[in-house]
């Protein structure tokens, strides 16, 4: 007999109401807003009548090379960020999971520290390094490599540096989590059977770590696509990415229908690209 909370005589109704708030909250503040955006995207701006003027014209605005270039730029940003983070994160995760012993906890803690700091401060810290008189330029001028300081801040280079810097820990931890649970006997067996270390890595360790890489994809690629803070701070607002444009529509232009339409439009693009990645991942495992 299963006397679960819901099955006690008195409280079936009470249970329902006690558990309800979380669902209602989620509905009102997460799923309905998404519906509102979708709904708004079909409305022509300025018309607030009893029955809204439904139109697809908002979406037609975006079939233009200007918007294509913004989307491509954001996709490129997300892709490069993810690729570089992956290349840098994998060795770190590998080292932490399989090699570091005495230092593991300390290193893990140091890796987790940036999670407690927001992106604004993390990006800001790079100002001191990338600035015209900052660390890099000072070093280069003192060494005599350059005579005048190079513009490093407010460039796309700075944006990429900032993105990789902020998202690196998000890539390391999932891969580490998977590698840590790796069955070391598989590696031993492979080496015993005569495989080279590289072959062992490529055919045993790497496939096994795919779930971690997948999680890393979700935690890096998807947020990077819509990132607003880092391009705004590191790029000086000179470069238009998806996040910047959405923010522009909503905060500056206050054009909610068009902004919503673009949000939906770019989300669909993101979804399609993510699905392509996902299927290629599936084929790789």
């Amino acid at each position, binding site marked *: 007999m*299963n*006397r*679960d*909370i*819901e099955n*006690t005589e*008195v*409280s079936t109704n*009470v249970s*329902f109401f*006690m*558990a309800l*708030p*979380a669902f209602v*909250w*989620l509905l*009102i*503040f*997460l799923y309905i*807003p*998404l519906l*509102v*955006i979708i709904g*708004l995207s079909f409305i022509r701006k300025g018309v607030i009548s009893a029955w809204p003027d439904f139109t697809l014209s908002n979406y037609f605005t975006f079939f233009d090379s200007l918007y294509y270039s913004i989307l491509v730029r954001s996709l490129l940003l997300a892709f490069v960020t993810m690729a570089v983070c992956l290349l*840098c994160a994998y*060795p*770190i995760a*590998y080292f932490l999971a399989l090699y570091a012993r005495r230092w593991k906890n300390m*290193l893990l803690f*140091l*890796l987790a520290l940036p*999670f*407690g*700091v*927001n992106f*604004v*401060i993390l990006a*800001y*810290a790079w*100002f*001191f390094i990338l*600035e015209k*008189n*900052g*660390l890099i330029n000072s070093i280069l001028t003192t060494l005599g490599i350059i005579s005048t300081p190079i513009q490093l801040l407010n460039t796309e280079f700075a944006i990429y540096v900032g993105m990789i*810097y902020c998202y*690196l820990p998000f890539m390391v931890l999932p891969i580490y989590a998977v590698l840590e649970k790796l069955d070391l006997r598989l590696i031993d067996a492979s080496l015993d059977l005569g495989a080279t270390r590289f072959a062992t890595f490529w055919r045993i360790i790497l496939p096994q770590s795919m779930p971690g890489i997948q999680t890393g994809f979700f935690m890096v690629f*998807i*947020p990077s696509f*819509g990132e*607003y*803070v880092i391009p*705004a*701070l590191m790029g000086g607002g000179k470069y238009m990415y998806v996040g910047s444009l959405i*923010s522009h529509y*909503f905060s500056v232009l206050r054009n909610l229908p068009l*902004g919503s339409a673009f*949000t939906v439009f770019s*989300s669909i693009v*993101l979804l399609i690209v993510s699905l392509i990645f996902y299927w290629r991942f599936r084929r790789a495992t």
Partner: protein
Amino acid sequence: MSSRMSQYMLPFFVALMYFFLYIPIVVLVFFSFNKSISLFRWSGFSWRWYSEAWNDSTMWIALRNSLVVSFSAVVLSLIMGLLLVHYGRSFLEKTFFIFYGALIVPEIVLAVGLLSLFSFLSVPLGFTTLIAGHTILGLSYTVPIIYARFNELEYQLTEASLDLGATVWQTFYKVTLPLLTPAMIASGLLVFIVSLDDFIIAFFSASPSTQTLPLYIFNVIRSGASQSVSALSVILLLAGSFLILLLSSLKLKKLFSFGQ
């Protein structure tokens, strides 16, 4: 390449990466004590920026706003999460994935969605809208964590308690709650950190009078006087590190082993 050298390649690379991770932070801390207003020209040691931050009333208001919003979000998401897990377990079994929605959608979509909703309903932006948005984030953390932990505990304990004659409320208060305390502390701390550091939802859901700290810092940097927030940034860095230290000192391994 001799294997001797290749043996050191990996640790060297990792050391390089950690160097890359921490150089900006070290430089930031160092230059927060810079006397002059220019970013990198060192003109002497000074507590100037720290005392300026201390005397900045806008900063204190932003701090107060951040704390109010974050604490509220933590309390709300903990309570709702607890109630949901305790009273709605069988329902949750089939529908728990909807709580991952906030984590899959890019945060900016969430943020503009909230803004659209509030505009549509003509709700004035302010504390309520901020807290509502952050609680959504919070629920994405409290529900999965508490639910996973709750499933791990033999819920026969709940059954046993009911069988022995306790009321549902007594069971909740004397059995479930004490057992779930570690999960609550961990997820509460996590939500607090996430909420305190959140920028994008606050950017869209806050009014000028309810700026949170990340917003305040962002605006100061954008206005050009970025050196003035260097001290504040260092302080927040320390606070954030402390919170992470707290979080990592809890025995978290058990909490996250719900894949097996």
